[in-house]
């Protein structure tokens, strides 16, 4: 029997950010993580710290996202001090490149709504093609305009996951890989988790297992409405730096490769690639940057976003299972700083966090699930 203060189920970006935040507060934490055959959204990530347009008609989500992005430099500094790993945080602002007038009008409408929701405190610019080419050389004639906000940024998501593992280990977090939680029993003293022959006990339990939160929540009698939404990503050969800004379709990484993506598919638990979607992604990237038409692709993958019924995060302190928490979101990179520095203190009982109140499970009662919301 293994005993600890808190167990976090899920060793992806969400679980590891929370585990790190708890370790920073001096808690004894054990992370239970599935095997490498798990779905692992954290390993298929595009790496955006994205604010622009998020939380349209849901100002609390926009506010929480902005809070996390504002906390990112502090979070980055803590990770770097603990590990020496440079996760390549850059926050130069980001561009939504628009390929039709309808897309530009829709993005503009969303940003205007958000700016009003924040009483004007929501900086953005609309750029015509001439203005855009001055900021980003190499833009193609198919780009009709762009939205820019200085709030966006990007990071190397694989280095982030590696840094979180290293930082957690430095601070004494016990990480157990390669096991699947098969049962959760609740006793007066806390929770007992069963995984094969092993038993893990803790007073507090955090479910942060992405799509696994649905079956894990059911073990505690909770309905956690999360479903997969597939994104496919193409990666190019290494190129000299030509694009310092993140965009939603095209992002050049710190090591020179270019990621192309932003596809959305509701195809269940299927994380493969498909030639039709890959060709659409490639065509759109070439519209954005025609020179990419001469570049070779070296890798492609599919990964499953973790999407709740309304597209927003779930932060639940379980009513019927005191001491258990459910955390789920599909922006594990953007929200990593808030998860470590705001959510973890709330879970540890050290601070109230009013900003997350709208994201409890009660909101889903009687709601129909949507297939996608940014």
């Amino acid at each position, binding site marked *: 029997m293994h005993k600890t203060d808190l167990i976090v189920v899920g060793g992806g970006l969400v679980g590891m950010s929370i585990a790190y935040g708890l370790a920073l507060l001096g808690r004894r934490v054990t992370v239970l993580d599935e095997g490498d055959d798990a779905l692992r959204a954290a390993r298929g990530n595009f790496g955006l710290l994205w604010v622009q347009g998020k939380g349209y008609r849901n100002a609390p989500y926009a506010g929480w996202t902005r809070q996390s992005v504002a906390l990112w430099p502090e979070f980055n500094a803590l990770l770097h001090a603990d590990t020496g790993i440079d996760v390549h945080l850059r926050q130069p602002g980001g561009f939504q490149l628009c390929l039709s007038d309808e897309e530009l009008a829709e993005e503009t409408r969303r940003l205007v709504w958000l700016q009003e929701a924040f009483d004007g405190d929501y900086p953005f610019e609309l750029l015509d093609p001439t203005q855009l080419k001055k900021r980003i*050389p190499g833009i193609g004639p198919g780009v009709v305009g762009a939205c820019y906000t200085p709030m966006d940024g990007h990071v190397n998501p694989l280095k982030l996951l590696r840094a979180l593992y290293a930082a957690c280990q430095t601070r004494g977090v016990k990480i157990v890989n390669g096991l699947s939680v098969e049962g959760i029993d609740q006793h007066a003293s806390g929770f007992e988790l069963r995984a094969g022959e092993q038993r893990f006990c803790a007073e507090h339990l955090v479910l942060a297992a992405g799509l696994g939160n649905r079956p894990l929540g059911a073990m505690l009698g909770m309905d956690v409405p999360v479903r997969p939404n597939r994104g496919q990503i193409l990666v190019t*050969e*290494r190129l*000299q730096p030509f*694009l310092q800004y993140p965009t939603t379709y095209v992002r050049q990484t710190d*090591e*020179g490769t270019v990621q192309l993506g932003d596809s959305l598919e509701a195809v269940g638990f299927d994380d493969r690639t498909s030639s039709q979607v890959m060709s659409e992604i490639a065509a759109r990237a070439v519209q954005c940057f025609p*020179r990419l038409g001469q*570049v070779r692709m070296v890798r492609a993958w599919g990964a499953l976003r973790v999407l709740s019924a309304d597209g927003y995060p779930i932060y639940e302190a379980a009513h019927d299972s005191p001491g258990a928490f459910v955390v789920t979101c599909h922006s594990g990179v953007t929200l990593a700083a808030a998860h470590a520095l705001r959510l973890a203190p709330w879970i540890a009982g050290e601070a109230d966090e009013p900003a997350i109140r709208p994201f409890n499970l009660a909101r889903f009662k009687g709601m129909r699930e949507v297939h996608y919301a940014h």
Partner: protein
Amino acid sequence: MPTETLFRRLQLADKYVQIEFEGTPLTVPADVSLAAALLTHDLGATRESAINGRPGAAYCMMGVCFECLVEVDGQANCQACLIQVVEGMRVRRQRGARDLLIGGQGDE
């Protein structure tokens, strides 16, 4: 670091072709990949990493590790282990990342 190639063919090739490596003519077997052809000569490193400049040469020989990157007839970032050697190929070391020349002269 001077190195002598460690690779020996088990039997003589039926046919040989001439290629150029960094301007120097090389006679290589005709029926092998470019990576294998380069390994039959004492060339040392055939690329410099785009990330940190570390020298490298063909390693996995099956398209996975990208250590065999070279420039072939002006085309950067070619995986030499996936290309059949061809008479007259002009091959250069791949030094760092490919330059897409975006934002340079002539860019629209």
